[in-house]
């Protein structure tokens, strides 16, 4: 439990607030812990002291915890896999290399069965997405209070450990995928071909506006569904863990253990789905309809 005096709602929203560094506008009224207020004379880059401040920062803000953890996990992935790659032998692979090869083989099989063109980027993209998203999701299995409490001891008030419960993280990746979809669509079919595909698709030429609307919605829905599916799943999982941690500590395991076991399936599945859909979307960008 986080503290003695805070309410359930406060506890939950505390857990759902990112450590935000951003720009507060001029004339903004800040309220500190003791309830004193003071007015900012000019716009200022600073750490947000509350969820309200964080949301008042608008777009010019960055979630330090999300970035920190996701980059840490990304570097963990890159470092460990690069080490395996450096020591990759043709002979009998040992321990970690074996594991890395299983993962790569798995991704490679899936890519080969979905994507039939020659492109050296797609398979590494799938691998990166799978591993990185999986590691981000895996942070969900760390008991919800451990790292935030540790951070509190070090004087950091907000700490969200699971980067994929931040919609910015998942949407960032989804936008990356979206850019790749557009890039490969135009590269393969030309701007005219791509536009024709959008305009003349399900119905013949006379229904152009309708086609355009349908296809554009379909196109935009790809990254949005990609981002929101992962975000929603992780957010919900996190939410359930937080709710469970509100129970008395001696009863928590009854719910948290089954949920954690089920969650192992979900995090793997969501990472897998994210990478598979990435590959599928890029394969769709390549294929002519």
């Amino acid at each position, binding site marked *: 439990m986080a503290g003695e005096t805070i309410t359930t709602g406060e506890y939950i*929203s505390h857990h759902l607030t990112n450590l935000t560094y951003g720009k507060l506008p001029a004339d903004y009224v800040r309220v500190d812990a003791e309830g004193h207020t003071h007015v900012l004379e000019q716009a200022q880059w600073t750490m947000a002291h509350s969820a309200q401040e964080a949301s008042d920062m608008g777009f010019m803000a960055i979630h330090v915890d999300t970035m920190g953890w996701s980059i840490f996990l990304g570097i963990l992935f890159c470092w460990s896999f690069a080490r395996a790659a450096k020591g990759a032998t043709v002979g009998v692979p040992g321990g970690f290399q074996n594991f890395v090869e299983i993962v790569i083989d798995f991704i490679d099989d899936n890519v080969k069965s979905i994507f039939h063109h020659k492109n050296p980027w797609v398979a590494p993209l799938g691998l990166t997405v799978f591993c990185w998203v999986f590691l981000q999701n895996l942070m969900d299995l760390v008991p919800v209070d451990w790292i935030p409490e540790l951070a509190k001891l070090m004087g950091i008030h907000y700490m969200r450990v699971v980067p994929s419960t931040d919609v910015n993280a998942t949407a960032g990746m989804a936008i990356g995928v979206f850019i790749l979809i557009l890039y490969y669509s135009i590269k393969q079919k030309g701007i005219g071909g791509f536009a024709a595909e959008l305009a003349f698709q399900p119905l013949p030429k006379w229904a152009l506006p309708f086609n355009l609307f349908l296809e554009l919605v379909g196109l935009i829905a790809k990254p949005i569904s990609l981002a929101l599916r992962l975000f929603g*799943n992780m957010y919900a999982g996190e*939410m359930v863990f937080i709710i469970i941690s509100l129970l008395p500590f001696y009863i928590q395991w009854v719910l948290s253990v089954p949920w954690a076991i089920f969650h192992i399936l979900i995090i793997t599945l969501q990472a897998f789905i994210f990478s598979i859909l990435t590959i599928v979307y890029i394969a769709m960008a390549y294929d002519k309809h």
Partner: protein
Amino acid sequence: MEAAIITLAGALIMGLGAIGAAVGVGILGSKFLEGAARQPELIPMLRTQFFIMMGLVDAVPMIGVGIGFYILFAL
């Protein structure tokens, strides 16, 4: 009054989402078993596809559960 409405809303979100997912996963599972029984040699491939589809079907109600919990406990 407001608390009752919020509770009701959370219950509706979770319950309706669960209905959809239950029907979806049920159909998916029955088809998977049918296919597996008809062509057991395709089971590995079918299982992969089954899990992909289950992840897709499962996502929406799971998000619903998240939102439901949020409005039940945090609001």
